[in-house]
C-alpha cells in the first residue's frame, strides 16, 4: 500500500542551527512530493514540492527539500532555524496515475528554542 512515514513525532533545534524534518514514502512509481506547514488552529500552508528535475527544491520561508529516489526520501531542511518556524510539518505524496489525492504523513512537530 502507498504510504508516507514521518519517523519523528517532534524535532527540537536551537535558533540559528540547521534543521531537518524527515520523510520517507513507499515505493511505487514516480510520485509527486509536497511539504506543508500547519500553525495552531490554522489550515495547511504549502511550502514546496518536487515533481521532476533537480533533486534539491527550494520553497517558501527559506526552506528546501532534497529528493532521494534510491532512499525514497524527501527530507525538509533549513540552514538556520527561527523561533517562528515552530509548527507542525506534514509531508504528502501524490501518485499521479489516475489520482489527485494527497496521502499525508502523521506530522512532525518542530520546536525551535531561543
Amino acid at each position, binding site marked *: 500500500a502507498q504510504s508516507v512515514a514521518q519517523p519523528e513525532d517532534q524535532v527540537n533545534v536551537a535558533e540559528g542551527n540547521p534543521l531537518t524534518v524527515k520523510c520517507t514514502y513507499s515505493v511505487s512509481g514516480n510520485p509527486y512530493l509536497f511539504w506543508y506547514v500547519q500553525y495552531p488552529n490554522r*489550515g495547511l500552508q504549502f511550502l514546496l514540492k518536487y515533481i521532476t528535475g533537480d533533486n534539491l527544491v527550494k520553497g517558501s520561508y527559506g526552506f528546501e527539500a532534497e529528493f532521494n529516489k534510491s532512499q525514497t526520501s524527501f527530507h525538509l531542511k533549513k540552514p538556520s532555524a527561527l523561533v517562528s518556524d515552530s509548527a507542525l510539518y506534514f509531508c504528502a505524496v501524490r501518485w499521479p496515475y489516475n489520482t489527485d489525492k494527497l496521502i499525508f504523513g502523521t506530522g512532525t512537530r518542530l520546536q525551535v528554542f531561543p
Partner: protein
Amino acid sequence: DAGVTQSPTHLIKTRGQQVTLRCSPKSGHDTVSWYQQALGQGPQFIFQYYEEEERQRGNFPDRFSGHQFPNYSSELNVNALLLGDSALYLCASSSPTSGGETQYFGPGTRLLVL
C-alpha cells in the same frame, strides 16, 4: 487574490444530526478536495470534485457526501453524525487539468460532535 475560504470556522453538533460545511476555492481553481484531520493525525482524503461531479473518493462511508456548484464552490455534508466525526475538515483547491499539481488549503472547519 483571495485564497481558499471555508465556513463556518467552528461548529458543535450532537450525535445523529446532519452538518453542511462550505468551501470557496482559490481564484482560477476548478477542483475541490475535502480532507478530514482528526486530532494528532495527518489529513485523510474524503473526496474530490471536478466539473460538479465526484471524481475520486477515499475510504469514507456514504454518510459523507458532497456537491460542487457551477462557480466551483463546494459543500461537504455529513449525515447521522458520530462522535468519531469530530475533526478539522479541510478544503483544498487546485487546477490539475491546467498543470496545477499543488493543492492549496483553507483554514478549516472544526467540528465537535457531542
